[in-house]
């Protein structure tokens, strides 16, 4: 076991976990933050995406020991004081979410994209979300949600 100290959604955490435990499982099982979903478990689908020190990563591919001392932002940390983040509001209003499994990863990938490219082209949106698979809506409504969020300056 290893002692891991990290900050999750602004809150300091100390955990004693196996060092190779996946960040995904640390979040879901130890911290009960079940908004982060498991899809493929192979880094292909992006359902487990979170921000690690500001960079988008697939939490199923990150061992716990490698997040010692880091800052993690999950979907639970995107909204503030019970109010949806503008990106979430745009996904809601534009029909960018259906069953919801891919949505947390999509929202965090959008957050990361708009952070790097506040006014993304359609091609940049497509590349930015290429690692997030959705099996419900198709992608057009998701792209529209991102474009709307960009208009609102929602990084």
């Amino acid at each position, binding site marked *: 076991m290893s002692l891991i100290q990290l900050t999750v959604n602004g809150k300091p955490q100390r955990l004693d976990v196996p060092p190779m435990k*996946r960040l995904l499982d640390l979040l879901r099982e130890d911290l009960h933050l079940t908004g982060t979903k498991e899809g493929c*478990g*192979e880094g292909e689908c992006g359902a487990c995406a979170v921000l690690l020190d500001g*960079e988008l*990563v*697939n939490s199923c*591919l990150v*061992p716990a020991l*490698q997040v010692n001392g880091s800052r993690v932002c999950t979907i639970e940390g995107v909204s503030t004081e019970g109010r949806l983040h503008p990106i979430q509001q745009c996904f809601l209003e534009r029909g960018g979410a259906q069953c919801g499994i891919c949505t947390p990863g999509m929202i965090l990938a959008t957050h990361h994209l708009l952070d790097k490219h506040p006014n993304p082209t359609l091609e940049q949106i497509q590349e930015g979300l290429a*690692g997030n698979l959705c099996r419900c809506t198709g992608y057009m409504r998701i792209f529209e949600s991102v474009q709307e969020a960009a208009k609102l300056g929602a990084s």
Partner: protein
Amino acid sequence: MRSDVAQFDLSAPPSLDAVLAQLAAEPGKHTPIAGGTELMVALNTGRLTQHTLVSIHHLKELRFLRADTDAIHIGAGATFTDIRRSAEIAADLPLLIQSASWTGTIANQNRATLGGNICNASPAADTPPALLAYGATITLISKAGTRTLPYAEFHLSYKKTVLRPDELVYSVSVPRDFAGYRQYIRKVGTRNALAISKIALAGLSRLDGNKITDIRLGAASLTDRPVRCSATEAALLGKSVGPEHVDATVRAGRAALASETHTIDDIRSTAKYRAAVAGNLLEEFLRSLAA
């Protein structure tokens, strides 16, 4: 089936020297793990056979990009995102930027490292063709010191490299002066994005009029390892890509490529398809030189 993580150990020594000392003390016992985009997949699918791992992802000594007059030196711990964000690499080594952009998704590019991509030693890896065409050198480091060799000599066979159990890749140095060279790279996969290569070819060439005065070719997924196509380069050197000669030059190039490479059959494609498409890519490159 997923592995039981309690059966695996991972340590994170504080410095490169400490990691090298650990590798030297028990050679072969500790498997280095950087961004985890390969080994964690193996863990998640129950295929990870190494149970004692040592993290190198936090080592600042391995995560650098340094440009000098002759070359750009890329630390083994530089991520594909680091590479894509480098203005110097973008200016001088566009084939490396292009191939880095092909390497998985943004989330994986934020974690995956050049050193990991090379050490994983897949014949289908995206960056090796460009590194081979550019004539990169690779520096390996151990407690005993460093050694530098042409990257073309690093891969020995399928997933086998010259890396010793007590060594890490320290850096890759890529010559940067390709002013006057034409640069080509193309990857053929199942779909346009996020697919592993069926075949990829990188090419560089310098011409004097229509005459090829230098040509370098690197390929992925053509043989059991990333490969520089030296016999094909030799067959094409001095040939003309002028209107009357280009057909003969293409024929000579295709014949040399077919005879020097033993194309592979695997889950992604067949040897026959690969040989045909590799010839097509070479032809596309050679005809683009004439234009």
